Each structure stands twice: as C-alpha cells, then as structure tokens.
C-alpha cells in the first residue's frame, strides 16, 4: 500500500502495469545524488533508476536530514510526480509538508536494498486504490487576489471594480513568499522548477488594439466602440476617447516601463488568446543584455534539488534567452544550530561537527579534534598525526571522485559519472590496502580522462577567476595560489608534500588540479602508511582557547573554540564554500546557461557548510 496510489481498482490490465511499475522504479533523490553517495549509497545497484525530472519519477527518495528550509521544496517535488508515487525515506528525519513515508529505513546500503524490496511489493499490491486521498500540503495552496489589469497597484482579496478606472478586477494568484506557487490540484500544480511566480493574464496586458476607428472604446475590448462616453458592457471599465483613426498609442503596448525584470517571469509566455502584438512594441522596454537583443527575462530555479548541481544549493538564475543575466543563491543553512549549544563536552562536540558537512565528515571531525587538542594543550603522537593525514587524503580522493561524477552528470559524460561514482563508493570508507588496490582503476580513469575528446574545449576558459584572496582549495590552486593549510602542517611536511598548482584560473584548470590531487593523495597515503579516523583524545578537565585549520577537499576550514573544564563553550567556524558562494554572481553573468552551470559546478560548493 502506498499513500500516493492512483485512483482506481486494481484489476485486469492495471494489475499488469502495477507489476511493471514494481520492477521499474525510478527515483528522484532529495537532496541529491552527491549526498546519497557521501552516505555510501549506490542507488542504481539497489535496483532503482535515477531520473532528472520529478515528472519522470515514481519514488521520492529522501536521504538523511532535510533542513526545514528545503522541506517545502521537497513537498513540491513530490506533488509533481506521476501517481502512483511512493515516498521512501532513509534516515530518521521528520518531514512536515510531506505525507507519512511509505517506506522508512536506516541510512545504509543493506537497508536501502531491503527498502527497495518492500517498495516493489508495495507497488505491486497498492499501486491502484479506489479510495485514495489527494496530497495536500500548505505549500501547495494558493491565495487568489483580485487586481486591475490597468493598475497593477490595485490589489484586493475580494472581487470588485477598480477605484481608478472602474474596470472589473481580474483574479490572479497571490505571489508566494517562497517563490513557488501551486494550484491545489496535483495535476494543475505549477512545476516549481520551472515557474517562479504566478502567471498573470498576458492578454490583458497586451491585447490592445491600436487602430480603433471610433471615438469611445474600451481599452480591453476593442470591439466595444460607441460615439458617446460610457462604461464597457463586457468589463465595466470606463470607455476612453480615441482621437483619430489609426493613431498608435505607444504607451499601451508592451510592458509598462516601471515593471522591473523580477516581475517578468514566464508569464509573458503564457498562452493566452493574444491579439497581434508588434515585436518592437512588446520588447522596447525590456532590459537589454550584452548582445543587445531584447528578450523576456525569466527567473528559473536551479535547485535546491537540481541534478548536476550540489544538492541543497538554492540557485535561481535570471535568464535572458539562454544567457544568464543575474542570479541569486542561497543555502539551506542549518549548521548554525549545530554550533549553538550549551557547553557540550568535547567528545559530543566533535561528533556534532563531523555532521556539519555530510560531504566531508572526516575533515570536520579532524578540525574539531585538532582545535580541542590545541585548546587543551595536548600533543598528538606523530604516528597518529600521520595516520590522520591518510584519512584526510582518502577523503580528498573520494570527494574529488564525487566531484568528477557530478561533473560527468552535468556534462552528459555518462561513462565518467558511472566510473567515478563507483570508485568514490569504494574509496571513501576503505582501509589502506583496499585504497591501494584501487590504484590501477583510478589510474585508468585518469588516463582515459586525458584522452577524452571535447573535454578541453568544453571547459577551457569557462568560469575564469583571477587569483584573489577569496579563493580556497582547488579553486585557488587552479589560479596558481599554492600555499594552503597543508603547507604549514608539520605532518604533511614530514610526508614530503608539495601542492598541485595550475595557472589556468578556469574550469579546465580546476578539473586538472582535482585529477592530479587524486594521484597525489594516493602517494601521500602510501607515504603515511596508515589510515585512521581522528578520534578524540582524553582531554580531561582542561580549559583554554584553541584554534585549528584543516585543508578540506574544498579548501581551508578554520575553527576557534573555547574550552572550560573539558566543555566547549564557544566555537566559531569558517568554511571555504561561504567565500565561494559570493563569487557566483559575477562569475556567471552573461555566460550561456550551459557554461554558467559548468562554472558553478567547477567551484565544488558544499551548501551544507555555509553559514548565513
């Protein structure tokens, strides 16, 4: 039985289709495939196909904790899916807005596989139900407002006529605060990924006739023509005087000059019964992009669950044709509360910080360990420090492989996506022997990457970032900045570390740096000779202030904390993605959509570690 069953009796042919659906499970992953891989999940191996559009999905797979800011978006995704649809939650998370999970399992591959088995029988038996309730969530409700087509500033909740021109007000949906609007019928729900704000009646704005031959006419209904003043029989609006036959009034064509582009969404392309419009008139007040072509600017959400971008990144692009005219980017936040706490003991603080960033748990665990040790004045034995370097480099390799998989997905390079993803899953929790056993596979991947046609022309020159102080990690090293947190780290110095640097400053250089760091990381693991997860050392009742910096796969993260009698009373975290997030807008302006997404992807953002 599934809550999102399709209406109808399970009989005859439907039984057959239900059986087919049970075998053909298509999952949309929330928050994203990168998070699923970071948790060690191989969705395809578990028997589900991953799809890019919620419309093509039959299973909504929720992985791990979804911050409150993203729950609405998850509900919208669910509402867009074809029925019968199922909600499959991995992990302990409570999801308001969404219905009760059909299948709930723990976060592990075995549990995923068991869940898929349960899902199959749920589909086979419960894909159709005669008494199925509609999915209903607060986010899907729209408020209807009434507004005057001629005076957009007139907005009220009841129907009536315009106090300024007497015209009957027309109904429209109230703009949603979150940027999504939805009808309450799932079939009619606005695709939240495609529509940013509600549509207005386009015909009302543009359906004007410039050549009315008579003296008094209705601005909205040009067929209403009479010799004396009065009100329009169709809409009640006061009729307006026309001077001479054939006079063209320019101010009524097109979009009113005061409307800014943020209000120009896809609504200008709504398919109303438009009367003839002059293209010059329609486009004369539109903002111009660099190529001088006036086009409708539309705000298109690319996230928070967009395939090919890091899961959780709330990116909205203002598109002018397929050129990016502007962008706004947000992150789910959420780690604020992880750091605001009342005096945790050091052990739980470390555990907590390790969860700040699902994409790099080892780095943050190490960061917390080092900071507490620094505050307590504890010296770590050299062998342990060395083994920690092994763990950190293993995470760097896994993370870069994960980035390669995302890059492959984004650029439609299927082989790379599959190969890098499977290697990431094998590397990320492997012991030193297994990691070294994977060396030939990794070398093969890199060798093939070097020989891939089109790769250079696709990435060279895209997303150029001149060397500056805001760059971190591989992005900085791709711009020739070679001193990262590892350069001053004695345990790295002992292993003969030299950073990988490139001068290209573009997406290609970032790709090359990451690929080389994979090989480099393997060499460091060999030199370190061991991999050991950073474990808290007993610090007793120590007090003091301490700080630490760790070069995470995305750049340096710094932590300052204060210890009082073995408890962490204050902590301050600085992460690389916070700085990179601010780079996005200037980086992608006036780029074609494909290049803009590639440029954002090349930064390897981790929305989860960003503090707002």
């Amino acid at each position: 039985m599934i809550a999102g069953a399709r209406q109808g009796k399970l009989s005859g042919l439907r039984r057959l289709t239900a059986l087919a659906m049970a075998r053909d499970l298509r999952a949309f992953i929330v928050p994203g495939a990168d998070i699923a891989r970071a948790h060690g999940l191989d969705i395809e191996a578990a028997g589900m196909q991953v799809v890019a559009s919620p419309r093509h999905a039959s299973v909504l797979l929720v992985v791990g904790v979804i911050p409150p800011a993203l729950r609405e978006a998850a509900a919208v995704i669910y509402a867009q899916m074809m029925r019968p649809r199922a909600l499959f939650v991995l992990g302990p998370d409570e999801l308001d807005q969404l219905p009760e999970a059909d299948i709930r399992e723990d976060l592990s591959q075995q549990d995923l596989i068991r869940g898929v088995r349960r899902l199959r029988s749920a589909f086979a038996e419960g894909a159709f139900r005669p008494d199925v309730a509609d999915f209903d969530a607060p986010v899907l409700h729209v408020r209807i407002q009434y507004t005057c087509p001629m005076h957009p500033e007139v907005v009220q909740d009841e129907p009536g006529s315009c106090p300024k021109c007497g015209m009957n007000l027309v109904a429209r949906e109230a703009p949603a605060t979150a940027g999504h609007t939805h009808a309450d019928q799932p079939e009619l729900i606005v695709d939240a990924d495609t529509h940013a704000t509600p549509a207005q009646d386009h015909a009302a704005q543009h359906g004007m006739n410039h050549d009315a031959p008579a003296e008094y006419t209705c601005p909205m209904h040009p067929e209403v023509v009479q010799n004396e003043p009065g009100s329009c029989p169709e809409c009640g609006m006061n009729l307006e005087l026309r001077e001479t036959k054939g006079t063209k009034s320019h101010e009524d064509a097109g979009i009113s000059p005061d409307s800014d582009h943020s209000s120009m969404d896809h609504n200008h392309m709504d398919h109303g019964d438009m009367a003839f419009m002059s293209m010059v008139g329609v486009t004369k007040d539109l903002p111009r992009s660099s190529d001088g072509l006036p086009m409708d600017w539309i705000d298109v959400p690319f996230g928070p669950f967009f395939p090919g971008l890091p899961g959780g990144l709330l990116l909205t692009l203002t598109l002018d044709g397929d050129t990016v005219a502007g962008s706004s980017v947000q992150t789910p936040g959420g780690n604020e509360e992880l750091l605001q706490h009342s005096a945790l003991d050091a052990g739980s603080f470390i555990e907590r910080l390790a969860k700040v960033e699902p994409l790099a748990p080892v780095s943050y665990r190490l960061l917390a360990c080092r900071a507490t040790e620094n505050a307590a004045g504890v010296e770590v034995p050299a062998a342990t420090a060395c083994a920690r370097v092994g763990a950190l480099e293993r995470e760097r390799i896994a993370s870069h492989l994960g980035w390669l998989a995302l890059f492959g997905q984004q650029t439609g390079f299927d082989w790379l996506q599959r190969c890098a993803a499977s290697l990431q899953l094998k590397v990320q929790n492997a012991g030193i022997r297994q990691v070294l056993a994977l060396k030939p596979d990794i070398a093969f991947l890199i060798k093939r990457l070097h020989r891939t046609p089109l790769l250079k022309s696709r990435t060279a020159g895209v997303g150029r970032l001149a060397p500056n102080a805001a760059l971190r990690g591989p992005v900085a090293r791709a711009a020739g900045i070679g001193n990262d947190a590892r350069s001053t780290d004695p345990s790295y110095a002992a292993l003969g570390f030299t950073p990988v640097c490139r001068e290209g400053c573009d997406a290609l250089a970032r790709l090359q740096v990451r690929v080389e760091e994979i090989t480099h990381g393997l060499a460091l693991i060999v030199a370190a000779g061991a991999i050991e997860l950073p474990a808290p050392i007993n610090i007793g009742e120590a007090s003091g202030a301490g700080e630490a910096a760790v070069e995470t796969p995305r750049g340096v993260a710094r932590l300052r904390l204060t210890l009082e009698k073995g408890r962490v009373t204050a902590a301050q975290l600085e992460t690389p993605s916070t700085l990179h997030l601010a780079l996005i807008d200037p980086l992608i302006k006036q780029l074609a959509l494909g290049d803009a997404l590639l440029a954002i992807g090349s930064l390897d953002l981790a929305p989860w570690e960003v503090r707002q």
Partner: protein
Amino acid sequence: MTTVLVLLLLLAAGTYLVAVLEAWTASGRFRLAGPVVAGIALLGREFIVPRKPDRIFFEVAPVLLLLSALLAAAVVPLTPDLIITDLATGALFINAALVYVLVALLMAGWGPNGAYAMIGGWRFLGQLIAYAMLIVMPITAVVMRAESLLTTRIVASQAGLWNIVYQPLGFMLFFVAAMALAFLPPFDLPTAKAELAGGVEAEYSGVRLAIFRLGRLALIVTLAAAAVVFYLGGWQGPWLPPWAWSAIKILAVCATMLLAGRAMPRVRDADLLHWCWILGIPLALLNIFLVGLLVLVLP
C-alpha cells in the same frame, strides 16, 4: 499493405533493440525485458498536464515526432522490394520528413509552459541551423553518384564500391549531423538531463512520455537506416539474404551512434554552430567537388 505492416513490424523490432542498446550503454546493464517493462509501467502511470499549457502543441508534439520518423522510414528500402513507397524524390523526401522533428521539438518545448522545456526547444532550433546543411549536402553528393533520387537506385549505385569508401568525408559529416538531428549525446542539448532536467522531455509523463521516447528511438533507427542506404550499400552483401544485411548494418550504425556519445562531454551549442559552419560546410562542399571529379573521371 503487407509491405507496410512488415516494415512497421521490423521498425518496431529495430526500435526495441535500440531501446535495449541505449539502456545498456546508459546504465551498463543489459536487460532484454527492460524497455517493455518501462513501457507498460508508463502506461499505468498518471499523465500530468502542466498548468496553462498550450494543449494542442503539448499533445501533438510526441505524436508528430513519431510520425516524422515513420514518414522518413517509408522511403528506406530494406531489400529491393521491401520498401513502402519508392518515391522518385526519395532522398529528398527523407530530409523533408525529418524537418518535422524540429517542429515537434519546438512544440514540445513551447507547449508545457515551462522554462526548461522552452530553452530545450530553442536550443534545438539553433542545432538545426548547425546540422541541416550537413544532412542535405552529403546527400547531394550521394545523389550525384547515383544520378537518381530513388533510394533503391542509390543502393544499386554502390554495387561495386560502397559510398563509405567512395566518399568517406560525406559519410562522416552525415553521421555526425544525423546524431545531432536525433539529439543523441554529445548533441543532446535539447534534452540535457543535468542542465535542463530533461529539457523538452521534462514535463512529459505517462503515456505521452512513452510516445515521445518511442518517437526518438524510431528516429534513431530511421536515421541509421538512411545512413545504411546512402553509404553502406543498403541490403548488399555476400552469403546472407538482403534483409539480414540491412538489419545487421542498421543495428551496427545504431550501436555506433549510441556508443560514440557516451565517452565525451556534451558539446556547447556555440561550439556546435561554429564547427558546423566554419568546418563542416566547407568540407561538405569539398566532398561534393571531389565526388563530382570522381563521377567525371571514373567510368
């Protein structure tokens, strides 16, 4: 009538095999029953109409895509007799029928009133400007050698030497342009999964999605069949019966088309246009010139 039925059945069979092949190249899993299971499942799933659609465009687009592939297939001979209609303008007709692929994709992009789909549709219009000349100009050279637009004559003209050897440049251009026309990777700009969440496909669901995908697969088979007729000597070959040669060649071309794109990233739309115009069209002209010389020189 029987010819039509037989050919439709063969096309369906070819489409099915291509679907299996595509799933194999995409996911690395060979599942013979995969497409039929996916198809039946889609039949039972809900068909969602997005809000404020252009209903006619939205509904017609998948059917039109399928129809244009079927129309083009009507003039492709599998054996000397197994052809629906041997039009006197056959080679040109293929090109004419395939123009509706563009129309279908633009309609699919405009219809659902969604930004991803719309960008995908317009991207394909740009793609047409890139590939269209590279479909027609190589066909011109093929027709020059056969001295006929009849597809059966074109196959017969390759009796001594297949066109892939006679005019390899033309074959390469046609092959690349055919992949761009079928929006196969690396030319899958209108359906880019991770750039446009499926693009023109993104808003389709249920039965219509099944028809759209079927239409695309049929288009791949038709284009592969056209490549076989124009360049690979059609049904000709030793030992095996003509239909078997046609089938083997078509499937081989399909497999090459599907595999070629898996090992490289998607091209940028600007690069595609640039290469097709700066490089492709001069090469196509050179090909016509060379074939002209060969036709004059060789008996």
